[in-house]
């Protein structure tokens, strides 16, 4: 199972948040991996734990209220959760970069774009080459980065504060900060979601061009199945803290298996028309007292007796299509026999 090609491998990750009355058991054994050069989508609805998973990868969760009772996050074979300060620093400044979901919140409101992007370049390049950088080098690198995300008038842009830019421009700045120095893995959290559809389209195209040109791997976190389909090779579907299904993109849309995936796909309105389903009944569980067994079982239209007793693991149905649902237990057995 282990090969050199594997960039990031998350195994059985659990993350809990401490609140009044106990812990919110947000991540309930997440399994996830991405290979070099791959484009992977992570799809799920609000509160399913997508962002928590990826923040755990960079270890930027608020450490005071967070507990990680189990699991490992291997980046190029090394467990990020066990890394020391300098090692972690190296991963952050050279290995992985994250584009945060809300570009307005992700930019410090009281520093100019130039100051913020300049520091990213300084600390990323400085540790790489272990020498002091010239101010002019930093500036030209920053301007180059802004140019790559097609922001006009880069010189003036460096002196601007985030408030002076439109939402789309802020998103581009965030991307430029992530790509300004070479990284192996880019994590994009809902890029362009808060923006209009035409701007989102531009941002997504830009991202795809950038990662394809550089051969960077990308994890795209999104709530939109459509965005994931257009952007990625492989898609994970997440529900209430664990992965319920993973497949090659085309496969997933042709042959969705998990009842949750089916419900989600049915809920998406289509431009070909055909009306609207009634959605998925119920709502996302309370993480303080999550349902036993499969967390989807209280909402599941095809619930089996074992669903409430045991949490289903991934059943492999071939071609990398795995689904965590007891409905497919037999299908896997048939395949194996």
């Amino acid at each position, binding site marked *: 199972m282990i090969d050199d090609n594997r960039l990031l491998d998350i195994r059985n990750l659990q993350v809990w948040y401490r609140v009044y009355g106990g812990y919110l058991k947000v991540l309930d054994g997440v399994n996830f991996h991405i290979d070099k050069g791959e484009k992977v989508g992570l799809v799920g609805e609000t509160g399913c734990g997508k962002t928590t998973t990826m923040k755990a990868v960079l270890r930027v969760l608020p450490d005071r209220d967070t507990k990680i009772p189990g699991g490992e996050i291997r980046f190029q074979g090394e467990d990020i959760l066990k890394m020391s300060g300098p090692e972690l620093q190296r991963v952050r400044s050279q290995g992985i*970069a994250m584009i945060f979901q809300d570009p307005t919140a992700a930019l410090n409101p009281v520093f100019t774009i130039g100051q913020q992007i300049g520091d990213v370049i300084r600390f990323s390049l400085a540790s790489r080459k272990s020498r002091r950088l010239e101010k002019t080098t930093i500036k030209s690198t920053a301007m180059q980065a802004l140019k790559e995300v097609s922001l006009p008038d880069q010189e003036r842009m460096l002196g601007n504060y985030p408030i002076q830019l439109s939402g789309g421009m802020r998103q581009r700045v965030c991307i430029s900060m992530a790509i300004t120095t070479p990284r192996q893995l880019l994590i994009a959290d809902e890029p362009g979601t808060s923006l209009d559809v035409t701007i989102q389209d531009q941002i997504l195209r830009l991202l795809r061009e950038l990662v394809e040109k550089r051969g960077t791997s990308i994890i795209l976190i999104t709530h939109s199945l459509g965005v994931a389909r257009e952007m990625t090779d492989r898609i994970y579907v997440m529900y209430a803290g664990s992965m319920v299904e993973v497949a090659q993109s085309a496969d997933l849309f042709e042959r969705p298996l998990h009842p949750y995936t089916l419900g989600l796909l049915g809920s998406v309105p289509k431009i070909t028309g055909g009306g609207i389903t009634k959605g998925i009944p119920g709502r996302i569980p309370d993480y303080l007292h999550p349902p036993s067994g499969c967390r989807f079982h209280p909402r599941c239209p095809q619930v089996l007796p074992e669903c409430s007793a045991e949490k289903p693991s991934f059943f492999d149905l071939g071609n990398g299509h795995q689904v965590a649902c007891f409905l497919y237990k037999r299908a896997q057995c048939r395949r194996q026999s």
Partner: protein
Amino acid sequence: MKLGAFLLRRILLSILVLFGISVLIFVIARIVPGDPARMALGPRAPKDVVERLRQEMYLDKPLPEQYFYWIKGVVTGDFGKSLYTKRDVIEDIRDYLPATMELAILAGFLMVIFAVVLGTLAARYRDTWVDTLIRMLSYFGVALPAFVVAVLFLLLFGYVWPILPTLGRISVGVTPPPTITGMLTFDSLITGNFPAFWDSFKHLLLPGVALSLGSIFQEARITRSAMVENMNKDFLAAERGYGIPERTVMFKYLLKPSLIPTVSVMGLDFASLLGNAFLVELIFNWPGISRYGINAMLRKDLNAISAVIIIFGLVFVIVNIVVDVIVAYLDPRIRLGGVRGT
């Protein structure tokens, strides 16, 4: 340019506020039961003398007209005569104001430095003994009225452990510097008179600390909570995530936005500091304008009272403008507000 317009607007507003204060003071001075002229001259003055003074003070005119004559004097620096010192109030102010300014500057300085340092420490080492210690200190610090601190200092440093002078501005044996600003520490520094500087500085220390103690802890708590709140912001996670080292994140990216609330309330804290100066100066026998003011109040010396209040209003308004400018410098959202179209 933007800042200029902002400043202009702010100053115009302040003038309006000052006008309001003057009306308020005038009203307060006129609600005094009894005849101001009679009070000024004492119960034994002959009736016609009182009547003449009434005319001089325009007391026979309707109130708006009285206000007009009064404010005309105030604008030109003529607050009338003090009943108590028998001098022009403006001269008294000239003599007493520098001592208070000296005190307020030191207290303000202490407030800013210690508040930010303690607040940052508490936030940085949050939930450790450092944080707990600072929190406990601040609970007591906030509950200690300045006059209680002053009295305790007097007891402690006056009798128990006399290492610092507790009364007056300068020791009897030390030659005071010539009056330039009127502030002894500054004047002695300017003239190079270091013994006088050291002596006057020592005199300044106890009242200065007594004055600023409460505000220091108030502000430290605000700084701490602003920093703790910003620690959970996405931009901090992003900066960490991009590989910026922890120290830079803490002292550059976290500190600057967190100072905004601290500085914003500094104007208000400076106000309570000025108010406390009235009691602290009295206790330390500090010959400042606050002690002058409180004596005027206790003697119902109306001209002096109004002058002191107007002066404090003016100082407070200026401090607030300075605070606003600093906040605008720290926070581009205020400076550039409304630049972006919708």
